[in-house]
């Protein structure tokens, strides 16, 4: 490693080159582990370092993290299976998204990855049937208040979240990959049409390129970059595993060329994905990297002003100005 870093860059460099941990002292290990936990990448790190010579205590922590990821994988796949059973009667395409798709398809991006809710994509025209079938199988509303519910239904790209009454697991049912309010409108029909079947069971994933487009859209056209290091690791793994043939055209088709290009550049900067233009940094990339790596050795979020700027930006991107104002006003009144 070059200069001693103690922010997200430390994690990035180790994920990029596990051998960089050679000669780490106790404090560097402690810092690395603290940052990885805060970024919810400790499982990924544990898998990257598997088999390397590391201090016994660190090795135990990484083994624990791999165990945790394995149990998380089991639970995620089971939720997908129960959703499949619930929707089997509908004869309607069901696509797994994000982490669950990665592990279901056995992709590199899924190795050791923390997985939260189950995200699925279905045709917008079928969404009421899907909703009904899920209710039938024991999912119910996470009781949101009226405004949130109306907001979701009118403006978001998904149903309000459902939770299973017995298994306590949430499912997000999407009909496209960006909010309807976003200035960009991806081609949802194409996302569905070009789906890739999973080995067994009648579930699907997005096409390889659409998975990358989705990751980029989620990161830059929707989110406030929270969890960005993990999402860019996904991008890095996908690019390394499947390449980017036809990606540029696909991104253009969905109107997400800028986002995809930026995802590739930043993944290249952080993780050294075979450089797809990552050496030609664009204006603003530095600011993104500053936000993405804003952690300290105690796992604390740092650089509050940069974080806040990206938070505001995320809302700006999601909504027309007048609606944003109304949204923030209502949220503010609700405290």
């Amino acid at each position, binding site marked *: 490693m070059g200069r001693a870093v103690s922010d997200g860059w430390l994690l990035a460099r180790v994920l990029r080159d596990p051998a960089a941990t050679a000669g780490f*002292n*106790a*404090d560097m*290990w*402690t810092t690395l*582990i*603290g940052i990885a*936990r*805060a970024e919810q990448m400790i499982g990924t790190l544990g898998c990257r370092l598997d088999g390397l010579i590391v*201090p*016994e*205590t*660190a090795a*135990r*922590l990484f083994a*624990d993290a791999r*165990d*945790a990821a*394995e*149990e998380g994988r*089991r639970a995620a796949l089971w939720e997908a299976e129960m959703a499949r059973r619930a929707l089997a009667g509908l004869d309607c395409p069901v696509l797994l998204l994000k982490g669950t798709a990665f592990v279901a398809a056995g992709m590199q991006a899924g190795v050791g990855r923390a997985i939260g809710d189950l995200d699925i994509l279905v045709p917008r025209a079928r969404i009421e049937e899907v909703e009904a079938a899920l209710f039938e199988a024991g999912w119910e509303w996470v009781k949101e208040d009226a405004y949130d519910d109306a907001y979701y239904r009118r403006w978001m790209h998904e149903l309000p979240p459902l939770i299973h009454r017995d298994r306590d697991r949430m499912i997000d049912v999407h009909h496209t990959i960006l909010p309807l309010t976003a200035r960009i409108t991806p081609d949802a029909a194409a996302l569905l049409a070009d789906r890739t079947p999973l080995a067994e069971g009648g579930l699907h994933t997005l096409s390889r390129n659409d998975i990358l487009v989705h990751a980029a859209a989620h990161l830059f056209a929707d989110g406030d970059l929270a969890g960005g290091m993990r999402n860019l690791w996904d991008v890095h793994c996908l690019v390394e595993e499947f390449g980017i043939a036809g990606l540029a055209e696909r991104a253009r088709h969905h109107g997400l060329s800028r986002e995809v290009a930026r995802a590739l550049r930043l993944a290249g900067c952080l993780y050294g994905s075979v450089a797809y233009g990552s050496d030609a940094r664009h204006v603003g990339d530095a600011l993104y990297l500053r936000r993405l790596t804003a952690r300290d050795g*105690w*796992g*604390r979020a740092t650089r509050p002003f940069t974080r806040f700027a990206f938070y505001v930006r995320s809302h700006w991107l999601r909504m027309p100005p007048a609606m944003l104002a109304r949204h923030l006003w209502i949220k503010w009144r609700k405290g």
Partner: protein
Amino acid sequence: MRHRFDVRIGPVGFRIGSDWLGPITQLEELYRDYPEPRDGIPDFTVRLFAARPWRRFVRPAITIAGDYTIPDAAPLPLAQGLLAAEMGMNLQMALAQRRYLLLHASAVERDGRALLMTGESGSGKSTLAALLSARGWRLMGDEFALVDLDDGSVHAFPRLLSLKNEAISVVELTLPAARFGPRMEGTPKGAIRHLVPNAQAIEAMELPAAPALLLFPSFGFVAETRPVPPSEVFIRLTQASTNYVALGERGFDALIRIVAGVPAHAIDYPDTASAVTQVEALWDAL
């Protein structure tokens, strides 16, 4: 962070960072005979900090966080900094420990065999553990019993015992020579005073013990003991464990091993004296 204290309790290493010196000084004093984390690498990090910068000085309030966090947990006044640190350590264990099946139980050892006592707080398991340690039992812990996932043995986690309200004076009388932390009034659980485990507990904290008896004490009834059927033990322990579900099949194996191999009794006791008698009677009957 400004101030830092590292310690190992049983097999688990902690790093505690604090915006204030006070809690760190108390920890250094009370844990002075404890070792450092193995390899200098703690298992968990705890952070005690001021939610707002000025809160370091103005009515200082301690927010508890760490590797694993409850963001909205109520801040504690600086005077309760020691409690905040203990809560922070417990929280890391409860949320993220997965090398052992974690049972919310107190544990004492005799002849290499462990007695586990589990129940909701207020069941008196801390007090009983303290009193038994005064009678020659080795204290293994008053909060968590760590069940080894491979061989089912119980590992000690002898952190400071947290005594509450009436229990404080009871133990102060029984163990006049023992070392105590400051008495903290008006905590979320009333008055709390921490007891430093005795030398025997600290010296032997590396030694696991085979679980031999499992008790479910409850306070405030006429003295009575009854055996608990396996399925009830199974259910109770899944609820007494903070990580049973997270451990998957290994947790199932560990739990079945206890249910099948360790006799279990529920004991109701009117006062701690009779509790000790009931416990030792059951132990001698093994």
